[in-house]
């Protein structure tokens, strides 16, 4: 009887501990939310400012927070070099007091055609924890009307035309010298 009671208590404790952990996971120390935009669907070259909120849920201030944009290219299944998108400079929050919310603006310019997930990440020098927002979908639509045949014709034809001029020029000069 005592053995059974111990097992039941242990199972109940297990539920309690798990529930507490799950609760802890729902309430992170820092939360990052993207305020705007909700999504982007545009052509390459589109410039936008991503506005995000960083909320401190702890009861102590957090110093030296670094907030930056991260993007995953879901079309090619790789991360992106944010320098190409002029978004490699993070925003710094010197101090985020307990319960305080700060808004930051991060500029970005979309260059390549693909589908991305954009999210904002925050981290501080005080902890190894990384906090990211929920991603927003970015669709950069291809608008190139470049015709490969025309490119090939121009790339081969132009140097050939100049070469003909070069040959004519040399032939004329040689004739002059002979004369």
């Amino acid at each position: 009887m005592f053995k059974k009671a111990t097992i039941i208590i242990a199972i109940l404790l297990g539920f309690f501990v798990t529930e507490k952990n799950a609760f802890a996971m729902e309430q992170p120390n820092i939360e990052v939310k993207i305020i705007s935009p909700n999504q982007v669907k545009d052509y390459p070259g589109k410039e936008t400012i991503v506005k995000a909120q960083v909320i401190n849920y702890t009861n102590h201030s957090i110093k030296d927070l670094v907030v930056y944009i991260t993007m995953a290219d879901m079309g090619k299944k790789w991360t992106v070099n944010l320098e190409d998108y002029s978004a490699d400079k993070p925003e710094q929050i010197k101090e985020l007091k307990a319960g305080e919310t700060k808004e930051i603006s991060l500029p970005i310019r979309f260059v390549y055609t693909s589908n991305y997930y954009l999210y904002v990440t925050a981290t501080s020098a005080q902890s190894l924890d990384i906090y990211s927002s929920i991603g927003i979908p970015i669709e950069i639509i291809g608008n190139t009307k470049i015709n490969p045949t025309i490119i090939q014709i121009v790339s081969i034809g132009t140097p050939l035309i100049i070469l003909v001029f070069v040959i004519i020029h040399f032939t004329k000069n040689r004739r002059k010298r002979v004369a």
Partner: protein
Amino acid sequence: MFSLIKKEIREHVLSRKGVWIFFAISILFSGLTYSFISVKELSLLAQVEVNMTFMKALIGISILVSIILGSTMVSGEREQGTLESLLLTPLSKMKIILSKVIGILAFWLIISIISIPYFYALTYGTNMLFTILAYLYLIGLPLVISFSLLSLAFSSWISSSKNATLLSIIVFLVTAIPMFLSTTIKKSGFAHLVDSLSPVSSSMLTLKDWLVNKLSTFTILMDSLPVLCFLIISIICLSYASKKMDFLGGE
């Protein structure tokens, strides 16, 4: 003066060296244009970005060629001993310099004409060709003239062609530094100062605001202000240097 201009064009544009340079430039343009459809990363670029990249290459090549030509024009004459006979002609020093500037401009004009078919191919299906050409002749031309005038000034000041060329290239590289730096570095310190004052940087900003951001004429004019300032500084430098232009003294 007209015969001097003809001489400059014959020596630089229609010479063996000149026509081979045009051929080499067309090969370079072809390689770059072809890479926009054959290299995977470049083929993903938007058409406007493709044209901006090609314009950057064209302006870079144009400036480099014009400063090499300009920096050897006067000092080259001095080294060959032909400057003396040139200065003994009834033409003023300013007119001699002006004919050399026209020689460089004729060279650049041919480079710009060579680039037109490439721009046609790269802007195909859009209405960007007119804007691209307007930018090339309204912003690109003053930029190339500025560097040409400055290199001619160095050539008049410094007796050695090598030193004049080296100095001109250094000036070009300093103004072009921001193009090789990341956006983070460009936002602070010395790099930020160079970026905000550089005529090369401002010409690229003008291109972006004109083609991509489609900003107002006033903003575009403000963006291109360093280019115009650089042109004025170059004219002042050259007018001062042309007075100093003299042949080598000797026995």
